[in-house]
């Protein structure tokens, strides 16, 4: 090789030695290495544990959850108390309505046939929801929440079962009232508007309560349901003073029924997505 090139290379190396030394980071000290290892240790442990223990699988003893099964088990849990109280209240309602003068027991004059139904049914529904929404005992709540179901779905099924039971009672009672009025022969009961009247407000209050329950908890759910109930009274007064036709009233009631149904459906999807129970009662 040419000696001048060698010299130039040697000179270049000499000139670059210092800047290169500054540019290259010094090797880590033993204490820095130790600190790095200590910082990484938790991750090493996790890797080690992963290698040692196989991952946990879904319990093979447990079957896929379904809302139908949940509803059935919740029904069997609460059936006695709900059937007894429901039957007592609705029997009272039937007896309170005079079949010869079904329009006389009205809160707002005689526009509401069998007017006690839309007043009592939502109240009964809310009371039943409050009573059965969760177990009173902390220990039972704890063991009931350790299930493979989304915890909120368990509460949803319980509430839905209560709503279905109460509405069934009201429906049976309505049929009985209708038959009694018909047998009395003094007047006729417009059955569909009558049904829609109590069903609309009942579903709306229940739907509103459920919708809020899975977002803001039971206290606010009751408050919102009560507000919907009071607003319904105002609306009834308005339609009465403005002499709305029965068809117009039925349309409004149908709208409330539909709105209640949609709110219930949205609550169902919400309960499936929630990782915790409503009201912050059971976590996570």
């Amino acid at each position, binding site marked *: 090789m040419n000696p001048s090139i060698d010299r130039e290379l040697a000179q270049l190396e000499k000139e670059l030695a210092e800047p290169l030394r500054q540019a290259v980071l010094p090797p880590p000290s033993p204490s820095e290495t130790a600190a790095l290892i200590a910082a990484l240790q938790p991750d090493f442990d996790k890797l080690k544990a992963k290698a040692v*223990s196989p991952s*946990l699988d*879904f319990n093979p003893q447990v079957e896929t959850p379904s809302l139908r099964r949940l509803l059935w088990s919740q029904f069997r849990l609460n059936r006695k108390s709900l059937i007894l109280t429901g039957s007592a209240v609705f029997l009272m309602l039937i007896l309170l309505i005079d079949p010869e003068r079904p329009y006389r027991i009205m809160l707002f004059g005689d526009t509401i046939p069998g007017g006690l139904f839309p007043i009592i049914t939502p109240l009964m529904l809310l009371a039943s929801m409050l009573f059965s929404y969760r177990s009173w005992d902390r220990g039972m709540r*704890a063991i009931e929440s350790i299930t*493979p179901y989304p915890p909120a779905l368990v509460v949803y099924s319980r509430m839905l079962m209560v709503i279905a039971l109460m509405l069934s009672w009201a429906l049976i009672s309505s049929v009985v009232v209708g038959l009694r009025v018909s047998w009395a022969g003094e007047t006729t009961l417009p059955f569909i508007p009558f049904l829609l009247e109590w069903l609309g407000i009942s579903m709306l209050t229940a739907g509103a309560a459920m919708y809020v329950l899975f977002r803001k908890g039971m206290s606010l759910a009751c408050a919102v349901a009560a507000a919907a109930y009071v607003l319904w009274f105002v609306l009834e007064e308005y339609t009465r003073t403005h002499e709305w036709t029965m068809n117009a009233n039925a349309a409004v009631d149908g709208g409330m029924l539909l709105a209640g149904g949609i709110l219930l459906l949205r609550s169902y999807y919400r309960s499936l997505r929630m990782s915790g129970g409503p009201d912050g009662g*059971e976590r996570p």
Partner: protein
Amino acid sequence: MIMLENIRHPMGELTLEIGKLRIPPGLTLLVGANGAGKTTLLELLATLQLPRRGEILYRQRSAAEDLPLLRSQIGYVPAEIELYEEMKVYRLLAYLAELKGVYHRERIDALLSDFRLIPYRNHKIKLLSLGIRRRIALAQALLAAPYFLFLDEPLNAMDTAERKMAISYLSRYAGGRTVIAAVHEMNEWDEAADHVIWLNRGKIGFEGGTRRWNDELPLEVWEGLITREQFENCSQRNMIHFREMAEGIYVRLIGGNRPFPGLTLAEPTLEDAYFVRQYGRDSVVR
């Protein structure tokens, strides 16, 4: 294996703080004074609460990501529970089985048999003794044959025979699974327990095997007969227990050297080791 990392969770005036804890399969006793954090730790493990900080991994699964899966593998018995009193035993277990997604009636029958509950199968809960109710509470936790079993004072209200039966069952059940029981009386678990976790004011005071729990004690356990005068001079802090007898007072106490001539060295029990750790020691003779 359950791994707890950097757990911090408030519990009244204290905070549960666990830097790193590994709970291996087997039967683990969770001990500590009242308010030490045993129930809080069990509730965290049972996914009833999420830790304010830190992470719990159950064989690589976390509650945040795999809650339904984890809960399918968890059984829990709270310290206090009022089972639905109006329900009959079988009906209650069937209801709880359905909630857990277990629809095999044979499993309920097997547990009724294992916990000697068959005679009470059609009895209402309210008519049963507290010990039997506790057996039902234990049985419900086992309905899904879970991999993890968390028990808060599981033997409460049980009589001697019931306790023996329950311990024997849990000991067998813990083979290949993880069972953690918060207990106050340790000696009866002596043969069954594999590990001990001692919680002291929200922090881990000890974790390890039962042998190490006893072996690591700096003191020895002594027992024998002493005079009343010796007894009066003896520090009560070191006294594990004593019994008045006609010839004197029979004592079991802890101490470095032979505190009194009449005493002989005794094999330390789990309870002795707890006593030393929890309450410390004093000079034996005042």
